[in-house]
């Protein structure tokens, strides 16, 4: 009996997720266009946040590079979109981001802590300005047009990317690889002494986290139809995943998903209702979360649960 209870407890999380995913997959059959577009944005933010968490949460390195990978995906779509079929374009977008991340990771993951954050932030701006210069100098135009894909297709592609990502993220968390990343975050020198190839693992994790962001960028570009370096390499796409992951709480697998979903929906509401104050509200939420909720929403929920259950696990 005990075994079944444990199994049930373990199963309800993934089971719930499965139900939600099935609901999401069939949603476009009856939902309005607005809902589909809104959900695509939310899914995009969940993809970016969970990707960010794969690398940055266990290792403790703050990466501000998501915007770079996202932009690479967007430009892949803009350049190849009318030459190749959509699935290949998205695959190439992911692959291009993967290669960029491998290169950047191999070069820079020796940098410790805050230096890495600064470097990755500089990277986004460097690519943006080089691209802008190249476009104006050699192609003569600032922006590019992207092929149009209908909203339902974009939505389903984003959902597929998300499912693949969640699977990979879950497997990494459960594997020796994930454990090694965790130990790097706790004490990098000690991890190296126990025989973990620290730099190689960090680089691979960084590259894996880039794949899905690139793929998401490739499909999102088709919704915007017109892009230029300022749209594609917007630093906000680097800050948002960080914000959302912190808001949700990174200790649990569901934290970043929850944080991203709530935050993305909040963004939509705030932009439409309070267009002049939404940055202010975002900033306040970020500051308050860092100050008072170090474990994010999930931490808060657990605290409340513990209080309700009468402090049985007071010290866990």
């Amino acid at each position, binding site marked *: 009996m005990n075994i079944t209870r444990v199994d049930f407890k373990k199963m309800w999380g993934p089971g719930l997720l499965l139900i939600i995913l099935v609901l999401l997959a069939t949603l476009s059959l009856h939902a309005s266009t607005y809902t589909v577009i809104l959900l695509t944005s939310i899914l995009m933010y969940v993809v970016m946040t969970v990707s960010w968490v794969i690398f940055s949460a266990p290792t403790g390195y703050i990466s501000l590079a998501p915007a770079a990978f996202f932009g690479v995906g967007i430009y892949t779509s803009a350049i190849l979109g009318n030459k190749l079929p959509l699935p290949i374009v998205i695959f190439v977008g992911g692959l291009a981001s993967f290669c960029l991340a491998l290169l950047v990771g191999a070069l820079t993951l020796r940098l410790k802590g805050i230096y890495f*954050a600064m470097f990755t932030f500089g990277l986004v701006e460097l690519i943006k300005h*080089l691209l802008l210069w190249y476009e104006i100098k050699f192609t003569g135009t600032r922006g590019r047009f992207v092929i149009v894909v209908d909203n339902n297709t974009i939505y389903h592609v984003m959902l597929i990317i998300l499912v693949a990502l969640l699977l990979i993220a879950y497997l990494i968390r459960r594997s020796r690889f994930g454990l090694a990343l965790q130990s790097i975050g706790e004490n990098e020198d000690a991890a190296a002494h126990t025989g973990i190839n620290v730099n190689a693992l960090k680089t691979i994790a960084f590259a894996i986290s880039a794949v899905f962001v690139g793929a998401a960028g490739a499909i999102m570009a088709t919704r915007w139809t017109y892009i230029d370096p300022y749209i594609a390499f917007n630093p906000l796409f680097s800050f948002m995943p960080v914000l959302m992951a912190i808001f949700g709480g990174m200790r649990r697998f569901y934290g970043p998903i929850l944080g991203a979903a709530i935050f993305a929906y909040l963004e939509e509401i705030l932009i439409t209702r309070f267009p002049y104050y*939404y940055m202010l509200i975002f*900033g306040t939420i970020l500051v308050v979360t*860092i100050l008072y909720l170090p474990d994010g929403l999930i931490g808060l929920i657990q605290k409340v649960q513990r209080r309700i259950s009468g402090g049985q696990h007071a010290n866990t």
Partner: protein
Amino acid sequence: MIVTILDIVIAGLLLGGLYALIAMGLSLQYGVARVLNISHGEFIMLGALTTWTLHRAFGINPLISLAVCGPVAFVLGFIIHRTLFKRLLTSSASPGVFESNSMLASFGLMFIIQNIALVAWGPEIRGYSYLAFPVDLGGALFGANRLVTLGFAVVIGLAFYLFLALTRTGKAVRAAAQDPATAGLMGVNIDNVLALCFGFGAAMAGIAGMLISMCYPVHGVMGLEYTIIAIIVVVLGGLGSIPGSFIGGFILGLIGSIVTYFEPGLALAAYYVIFILLLLVRPTGIMGK
């Protein structure tokens, strides 16, 4: 030919003076208070827009609004450190954790200040004309306002250096930069000194904003660009080294001016290339330990 070189060098120094001032402010905040303040540029923006408002609404000479921008930014910075960052400092487990937490909190601060400024001043690009007559320097022509800017940057930089080198508070700041815990044990009121440094950094940003508004158009979202330049200069000069930031500002200004001469579109890209090369080859900067 010589005139061209003189042209480039003087333009670089003029730009460098501003960069030096901005970077010294950030260097104080990061080098001593350990806050990589992403909202640094927002204090510059506040200084610039305040100066513009005072000039437009009351006809106050921009140089006189120095007496407003500096102290107000100082008080603002002091209060922010005493409330927000002090709290983070006590709740963070290690200096590393504090560095990432405070950086993220300053992101939040950036959003907040930027939004308040957008509500207060709107998104329009603003500017005014002050001392905008040319001065002949050995054949090269420069605006008088830009020369005044350079003069101010140098004077403030030197004054601050003397303050650090000669006064008792300056000594406490230097001690806190080396080792905050030990400085506290030696009787330095560390909370006050850290808040003081953060305040001074903000004050320098405010003054830099006032100088920028004399030469360039200003608007509500100008801050981030200057923050990034400040970060690059601080890394170039060596994290935590104030003379390093001062010299680094002029070096970056010169580089910017040289690159602009050959290929105007690549000036910012050149800054990032230098930044990335520095981080890879010599992350301690030119004056770092």
